[in-house]
């Protein structure tokens, strides 16, 4: 699992959008599962999925209807069986026939996660998946993501502002600043290199350019 870290406007969402083929890079190429994005996107989009609390599902449709539609789009076999499995795993059974627009933030995130897991994606992209969740629900979502990663051996790319979440989940961290990769290493290596105790302190060093200032002073 890899984390994309960076301040607002650093380019996390744009990077995810390029990987999904939603926007075209101004230079360079993006290759996912051997396909060049966005040119060859239809070779791989059925093997990928995305979850973000900032992307809505149609609000008038019930959770079951939304999941049925997306299962059809992603070519899921045994649609109702898959929906029931996910509903049990993500504690959605009691909300299945409720309109998506009438769910709480936490419930919406779980539904959105169910949509993202419908097709057993080999590449799962998550944009701040625990934003606006209470600590208990956020912890529960993290546990579910860890389990999915372990069971499916999927590649997960996570954009987050939550440093403890990144430390817990990710074995690789890519630090972005103004659209460029500022650093790229494991959390342990980053802590050692920056001489910090937490990723949050490393993040602040990168965001405020402290390291460059120190290097310039030397």
């Amino acid at each position: 699992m890899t984390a994309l870290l960076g301040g607002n406007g650093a380019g996390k969402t744009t990077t995810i959008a390029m990987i999904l083929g939603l926007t075209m890079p101004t230079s360079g190429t993006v290759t996912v599962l051997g396909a060049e994005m966005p040119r060859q996107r239809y070779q791989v989009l059925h093997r990928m999925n995305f979850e973000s609390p900032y992307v809505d599902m149609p609000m008038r449709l019930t959770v079951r209807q939304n999941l049925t539609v997306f299962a059809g789009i992603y070519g899921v076999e045994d649609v109702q069986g898959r929906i029931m499995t996910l509903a049990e795993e993500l504690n959605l059974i009691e909300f299945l026939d409720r309109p998506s627009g009438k769910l709480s933030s936490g419930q919406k995130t779980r539904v959105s996660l169910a949509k993202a897991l419908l097709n057993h994606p080999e590449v799962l992209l998550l944009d701040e998946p625990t934003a606006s969740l209470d600590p208990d629900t956020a912890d529960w979502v993290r546990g579910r993501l860890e389990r999915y990663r372990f069971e499916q051996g999927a590649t997960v790319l996570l954009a987050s502002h939550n440093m403890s979440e990144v430390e817990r989940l990710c074995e690789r961290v890519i630090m972005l600043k103004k659209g460029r990769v500022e650093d790229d290493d494991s959390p342990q290596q980053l802590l050692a290199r920056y001489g910090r105790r937490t990723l949050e302190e490393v993040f602040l060093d990168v965001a405020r350019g402290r390291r460059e200032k120190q290097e310039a002073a030397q």
Partner: protein
Amino acid sequence: MSARLQAQQNFSLRRVGAMVLRYWYLLRSSWPRLLELIYWPTVQVLTWGLIQIYVAQHSGFFARAGATLIGAMLLWEILFRGQLGFSISFLEEMWARNLGNLMISPLRPAEFISALMIMSLIRLAIGMVPVFFMAMAFFGFNVYELGFGFVAFFVNLILTSWAIGILVSGLLLRHGMGAESLAWTLTFLILPLSCVYYPVAVLPEWLQPVAWALPPTYVFEGLRAMLTDRVFRADLMLGALALNAVYFGAAVFAFLRLMESARRQGTLMQGAD
């Protein structure tokens, strides 16, 4: 290449079906949406039906011309409602902020467009079938008298409506909700030039070639020939079909180009964050 992978990469009726199901769920969950489908066509048929009754009370040419009014109005509604049915289904994705979900899914543009065309037909059937029966019951407009002519009129008008709907959807993808008003108004741009309620000969001579460049003009001229002279003008219908093929192809090309432009400009992302 596995059969499943092959199926994922080709045009998929299942994905089209999933999208139609999505719009059907939405439509049946909302009575205002259903009511809106039938409300305006009903108001229109009542207005024009009563005008026709008034005109028919006079003898001579105006009585004969009056008979074409309600027919022209009904055909115009097919064109306008067909386009609206297409565009509103597309707009539903923008209103629901669901476009991002669709654009990162395996749904192909051709499948998306096919689903919107099917929904245009479903919405049209819900709105127009009762209105046609009303026109038959109260105003003596018998659609069965038009026979095959009606099928030819319908096919040509629905093709034009889809071409406009596809173009509007492309502009919405590229320019976002700022282009929403086009969905409601673009078809009206061709209303005066399509000669819905009057013959092409009424237009100034320099404007007539412009009118003949529009497929609906052929349909409305054909309707007048059928109702006043009892003649089915196959030549007009073939002319309309040829123009529709050109416009439909051009609209699909424009849609794809606008989508790629939106991808380059990053405007597709607006639906995703």
